[in-house]
């Protein structure tokens, strides 16, 4: 961090928040709120004189309240810039100045009670998101009574209690009697790998963190007896299995089973842990002087703000979504925005460094090239038809359309940011959007051709390029057998499937129409398929109102790997097709060509 702070080409904005990011790849405009520190960071020599005289003592947030700080303080020992700041909520007051002690002793005169938040604006070509992670709330597992028993601590607190910056200078003392514990237990997966409480995912780092903690303890306090309760130790990665073995070799006991209960002995303050040892199949009770809850990780709450500003998407686990988890794990779906570290998924330091280096070089490549390849498939507005309703701008997952609703000026597409999903085209009710490739005319012509002969035998299928079409392809390659009645129209995204395509298919005699796309978590265009779902839900109601069976319009989310699902769906829609008689098809055609009803 020191290197970053000193680098002539890096402008570090610490103690700042992103207010707004607008623009697109190569042309982002960023507005940052630089919060008032009330201390001139350039003049501050970090002499610590102010801290000595400040009368206000507060819990130190950085040390999780296990230590204290003053109203004027350095956020943490290695902070860059190495400058103090005043927390005005804690300070005895600057209006009127009630104390002023820090200003009196400050030689370089850097205390400025009148300082205001400052707004800094600048343009950048690319952005790297590295908002990091936070930890799970241990109280969700109330059987561990984290808030009740002082000797139950979290792994984060353990880190602080054994760190050199803490008041005990790295000496592990148990909270109730300030004596080194004789034995200690670690409980794994607190807040992780649970569908019901906490998060369903594995937090990735807690197993190895515990292995590291046990080795640290055994090295500094070989007399402390350590036990680890676990489901399975996930020590994947270079050198990790060796560390785990070393931990076992130095006497750390690994007990397979997650405790169901912790009860404190009121006299000794020792903790009785009840666990089903899944190796022996027996219920056991163990007594410990301290218990460490190995808490899982979650995305930082502030990530949401950045996510909105950069139109990024979140995976169901809450971490930011990469373009492709295997093939494009650094790029975000928004052009010119890259992801580094735990904002994308829980990961260890090594993986974070790898991803950050990758993100830096992806950014560097773009900046030095100075050019971006735009998609061949983009949308174009027909200004004369546009009513400036703004629906397209709301629908675009990339924020690539701007509309001035008040001035009623036609919408404008930023081609460099458009990815060509076609959702805007499908949502525009005034036919004011034309796609380059996959045009309305092309798709309508495909439907016409499809139903020229024996329409009653055919199923009109819309499949998105990235997932469902891939699923169909894989089913074919895997020689899976399914009815051949489906006729596929490929669109880049299911978001492109305009209502009018579906109506047209029914008018032409389609017994069944299937719209298929990526699962929500996999949408290649961030969240364009949410618009598909809304559209189809609306169409089910319209179909019913018109007297057409809603089930003749089917919706399925099928990934490129789900050849089996594709096959199953094909059988299901074929079964459905068989229930649609020629008379029903003729009736539908009549309803839809009747001007009043259709």
């Amino acid at each position, binding site marked *: 961090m020191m290197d970053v702070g000193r680098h002539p080409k890096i402008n570090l904005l610490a103690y700042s928040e992103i207010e707004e990011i607008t623009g697109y790849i190569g042309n982002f405009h960023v507005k940052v709120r630089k919060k008032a520190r009330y201390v001139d960071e350039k003049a501050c020599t970090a002499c610590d004189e102010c801290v000595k005289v400040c009368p206000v003592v507060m819990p130190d947030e950085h040390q999780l309240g296990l230590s204290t700080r003053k109203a004027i303080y350095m956020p943490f020992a290695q902070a860059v810039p190495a400058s103090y700041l005043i927390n005005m909520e804690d300070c005895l007051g600057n209006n009127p100045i009630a104390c002023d002690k820090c200003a009196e002793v400050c030689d370089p005169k850097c205390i400025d009670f009148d300082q205001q938040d400052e707004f800094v604006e600048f343009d950048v070509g690319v952005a790297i998101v590295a908002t990091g992670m936070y930890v799970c709330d241990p109280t969700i597992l109330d059987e561990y009574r984290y808030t009740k028993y002082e000797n139950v601590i979290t792994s984060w607190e353990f880190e602080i209690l054994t760190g050199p910056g803490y008041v005990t200078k790295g000496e592990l003392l148990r909270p109730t009697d300030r004596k080194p514990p004789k034995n200690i237990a670690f409980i794994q997966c607190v807040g992780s790998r649970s569908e019901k409480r906490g998060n369903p995912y594995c937090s990735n780092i807690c197993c190895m963190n515990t292995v590291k903690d046990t080795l640290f303890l055994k090295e500094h306090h070989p007399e402390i007896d350590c036990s680890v309760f676990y489901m399975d130790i996930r020590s994947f990665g270079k050198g990790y299995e060796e560390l785990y073995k070393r931990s076992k070799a130095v006497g750390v006991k690994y007990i397979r089973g997650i405790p169901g209960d912790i009860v404190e002995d009121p006299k000794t303050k020792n903790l009785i842990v009840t666990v089903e040892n899944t190796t022996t199949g027996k219920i056991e009770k163990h007594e410990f002087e301290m218990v460490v809850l190995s808490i899982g990780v979650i995305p930082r709450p502030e990530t949401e703000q950045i996510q909105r500003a950069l139109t990024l998407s979140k995976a169901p686990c809450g971490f930011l979504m990469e373009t492709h988890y295997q093939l494009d794990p650094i790029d975000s779906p928004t052009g010119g925005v890259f992801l580094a570290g735990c904002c994308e998924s829980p990961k260890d330091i090594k993986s974070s460094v790898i991803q950050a280096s990758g993100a830096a070089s992806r950014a560097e490549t773009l900046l030095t090239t100075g050019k971006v390849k735009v998609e061949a498939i983009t949308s174009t507005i027909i200004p004369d038809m546009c009513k400036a309703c703004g629906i397209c701008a709301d629908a675009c997952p990339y924020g690539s359309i701007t509309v001035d609703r008040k001035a009623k000026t036609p919408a404008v597409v930023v081609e460099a940011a458009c990815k060509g999903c076609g959702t805007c085209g499908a949502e525009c009710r005034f036919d004011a959007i034309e796609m380059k490739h996959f045009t309305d005319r092309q798709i309508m012509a495909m439907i016409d051709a499809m139903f020229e002969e024996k329409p009653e035998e055919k199923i009109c299928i819309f499949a998105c390029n990235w997932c469902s079409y891939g699923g169909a392809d894989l089913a074919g390659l895997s020689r899976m057998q399914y009815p051949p009645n489906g006729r596929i129209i490929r669109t880049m995204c299911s978001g492109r499937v305009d209502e009018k395509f579906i109506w047209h298919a029914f008018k032409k005699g389609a017994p069944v129409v299937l719209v298929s796309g990526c*699962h*929500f*978590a996999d949408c290649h265009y961030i969240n364009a398929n*949410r*618009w598909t*779902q*809304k559209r189809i*839900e609306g169409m*089910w*109601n319209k179909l019913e109102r018109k007297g057409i069976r*809603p*089930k003749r*319009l*089917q*919706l*399925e*989310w099928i990934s490129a790997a789900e050849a089996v*699902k594709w096959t*199953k*769906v094909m059988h*299901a829609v074929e079964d*459905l097709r068989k229930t649609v008689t020629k008379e029903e098809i003729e009736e539908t055609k009549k309803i839809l060509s009747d001007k009043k009803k259709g």
Partner: protein
Amino acid sequence: MAEEVTFKCLRCGYEFKGTYDRKVPEERECPKCGSNSIRPLPKKKEK
């Protein structure tokens, strides 16, 4: 705003209750047949 609705699977016909917010689309799956053609039935249509 989220409301309690009846969902109907348009593949197998199975009906089940759940919360629905028109503005927040969710991926839904029929607990019986696994289909994603899950229609939130309009309120007045409920018996």
